């Protein structure tokens, strides 16, 4: 399968989540800030397509001293579409395979309509909370 091939509704994507943003005691353990685009997210919010990598593989380019602080959540592309989000392939040579972005959550798009997207981030956090597929070993 080609990394540039369109992401289908039956696919899943992975999102890396720093442990600062997970608190299992809460009803929504994942904090929506885990999905907030940064100034590096110029084309969209980074995700990795599950058909190309295993959850742990998505952490390959995280600093070695920080990689143990990451979990990985799984999101269904279909669920993202229902939230008005799309997944666009954006393979990179340096990072893990299957890199893609959610263009609706690029930094410029987020800042242009923050009020709307903040609500969507809560929904993303709720979805991610239900499907954490990788946690660092103790």
């Amino acid at each position, binding site marked *: 399968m080609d990394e540039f091939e369109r992401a289908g509704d039956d696919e899943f994507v992975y999102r*890396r989540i*720093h442990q*600062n*943003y997970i*608190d299992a*005691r*809460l*009803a*929504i353990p994942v*904090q*929506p*800030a885990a999905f*907030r685009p*940064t*100034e*590096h997210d110029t084309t969209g919010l980074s995700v990795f397509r599950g058909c190309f990598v295993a959850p742990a593989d998505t952490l390959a380019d*995280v*600093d070695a*001293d*920080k*990689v143990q*602080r990451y979990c990985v959540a799984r999101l269904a592309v279909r669920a993202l579409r229902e939230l008005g989000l799309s997944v666009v392939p954006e393979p990179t040579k340096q990072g893990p395979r299957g890199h893609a972005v959610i263009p609706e959550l690029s930094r410029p798009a987020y800042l242009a309509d*923050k*009020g709307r997207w*903040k*609500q969507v981030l*809560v929904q993303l956090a709720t979805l991610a909370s239900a499907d954490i597929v990788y946690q660092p070993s103790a």
Partner: protein
Amino acid sequence: MTALLEAPVRTSDWQHEAGQRNGNGAPLDQRHRELKTVEDAGPWEPAVQAILAMQHLGDDWDGLGAKAPSRELLESAIGLAFLSLERGTPPPDRVVPGLDGVVIFEWQPADGTYTEVEIDRPFHAEVMVIEPGRPARQWTLPTE
């Protein structure tokens, strides 16, 4: 709880709390010292301690390029914490740094309401309240 958050917040009150609690306005040489509070924040103490701990985050604290909150922003967050304490607002369930240099207070009470206060720059915050079955409400602080 939401009603408490909806109470007006004056810039002067917020700045006063920040100055009282963490040395804002101190001579410049003191401003390079470690940020700390001089009194216990009661039920808000864990939140205040979480904010204080953020001063030790450097840029790229997450290994993927996150920005650390500035000292001025942390002072503002502490000021808002003490102002909320004085008003009897319950402490947040979680306080986290954002990936872009902000500080976020979050409440998730048992009634299903989701509330977030994002201090996005010194003495400025965005509030969002999502109550079950109702449209989300958003506003900014200070209110006057």
